[in-house]
């Protein structure tokens, strides 16, 4: 259902070029890998530090962009790993293992695309938008407030919503409310079905899946899970799936987020079981 893997998975050593806040909560990391890397929007990499800061598990980060030898990520400090990553200065070494996992597919010929990105869920959909967008496609980003929005990345047609209509920079426009509610009006204003692509917090994904189903629109979501390995060997990052009637699915109702995902058809996910793991 997703775009599949593109190219070989590489373990490389990167050097930090920049590691800078681009909004009140989001940090952009640019790593020079010393060689070009290709990726598909939605794929991720496992990053780790070296020496005393080395983490027991590497951390998964969706790829924001690759330009020549430089690969970029966007992250929010949420725990020990990201706190350590935020302290890395230009020149510091960060290990890179990727690109990993599946991807969002190119746009279908027969229907426009609606993108819903929440907060740090922006990278895969930013990458998709840069690579594939067409005139009839729509992209929505949701942040906490005006200061949380990475405005420098959201040129070229992005529509922005914020939970609180505060701290907006001069000239910036935003809709007040949740991004899923902002995007939902596509259901009533569109003249035909849309393909919905979503990435962000679990409530966003669940809500997107629900209203896409209301319109009988296909919906693909990129799921974030704790990961041990990132390459499908530990089964530590599973996503509960609905049984398809296949006997094997009934016994093995989980899919690995890292290898079989992180992009899934929303209709395949058991959202009730998924909610219990949040």
């Amino acid at each position, binding site marked *: 259902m997703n775009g599949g893997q593109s190219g070989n998975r590489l373990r490389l050593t990167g050097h930090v070029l920049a590691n800078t806040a681009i909004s009140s909560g989001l940090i952009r990391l640019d790593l020079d890998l010393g060689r070009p890397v290709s990726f598909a929007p939605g794929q991720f990499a496992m990053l780790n530090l070296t020496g005393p800061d080395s983490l027991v598990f590497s951390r998964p980060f969706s790829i924001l962009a690759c330009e020549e030898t430089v690969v970029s990520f966007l992250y929010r400090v949420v725990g020990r790993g990201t706190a350590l990553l935020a302290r890395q200065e230009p020149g510091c070494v960060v290990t890179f293992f990727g690109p990993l996992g599946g991807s969002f597919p190119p746009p279908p010929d027969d229907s426009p695309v609606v993108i819903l990105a929440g907060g740090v869920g922006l990278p895969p959909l930013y990458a998709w938008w840069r690579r594939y967008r067409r005139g009839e496609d729509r992209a929505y980003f949701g942040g906490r407030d005006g200061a949380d929005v990475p405005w420098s990345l959201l040129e070229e047609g992005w529509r922005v919503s914020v939970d609180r209509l505060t701290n907006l920079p001069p000239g910036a426009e935003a809709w007040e409310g949740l991004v899923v509610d902002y995007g939902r009006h596509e259901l009533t204003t569109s003249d035909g079905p849309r393909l919905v692509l979503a990435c962000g917090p679990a409530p966003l994904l669940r809500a997107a899946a629900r209203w896409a189903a209301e319109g009988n629109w296909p919906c693909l979501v990129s799921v974030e899970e704790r990961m041990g390995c990132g390459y499908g*060997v530990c089964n530590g990052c599973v996503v509960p799936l609905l049984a398809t009637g296949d006997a094997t699915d009934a016994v093995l109702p989980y899919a690995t987020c890292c290898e079989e995902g992180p992009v899934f058809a929303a209709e395949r996910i058991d959202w009730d079981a998924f909610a219990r*793991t949040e």
Partner: protein
Amino acid sequence: MQLPDWWQTDPCQRFTLGPREIPGRIWTASGCFGYGLSGHDISSPEFASPYDGIGAVVTKTVTPQPRAGNPMPRLAELPCGALNSIGLQNVGIDHFVSEVLPELERLGVPTIVSLAATRPDEFGEMTRRLHAVAGRYDHWHGVELNLSCPNVAEGGHDFGRSAETVAACVAAARPHLPDRCLLAKLTPNVGEIAPLAHAAVAAGADAIAAINTVIGLEVDLASGQPLLPRRFGGYSGPAILPIALAKVDEIVCEVGAAVVGIGGIATSEDALKFFALGAVAVQVGTAQLRDPFATAEIARELSR
């Protein structure tokens, strides 16, 4: 690293374990490299493949029936290690024999099959299934009986604490492995591991694999509840290295059995400590999750 003078072994040379020659002494541990099929499209500037120099891949544990595994979260990272509660998610022996083992052979992966069950006769039946197709598989070298996984309520941990049960499981499997090695992987969650190792060897095990994970628990302070849904998990990583070394030493000194050392190995120095105590091979676990080349790197560094 500078290799010590006493280390004169080439870990990438074949060695004999029971009735079988194994391609090398540095292995990946069960559950830490999947079924052994996931590394073929991975490369790095330093290695052509994660399989470089690897003596054997111990597969993810296979059970008589497929198992769904435990609910999420299944992992908790701690400062010096990790807790896991995967719950033996696996495809079951039927699918493994019909689909996975042929692929491992086609790819030339040196394989030790990890098996778990809740009764001794199930170990016998699973090894019989493997024996029935053994003639097709040059790269399948043996079986590791997982007698110690702490995450499965109906068997696992308590199962492997009884010397009688350990002996019964080994005895059930042995007749079906006339030309493959048989390892018994023991739990460290006992006061003395030597009686278990002695029982396993007396029943026909070629080597003891030690240790499996140490039982642990992490608390989610926000909820005040254990973080893992099954409360307990298996603790692994650098923190358990000295525990593993102590258990291996106990087995070597008191039983004199061949030991495959496991527990907290992340560097070639860590691996050498097991060899210094008399281990015939080692397995790399949690470090292989962080870096698919961790085992290959240790094999390279220990080669003379």
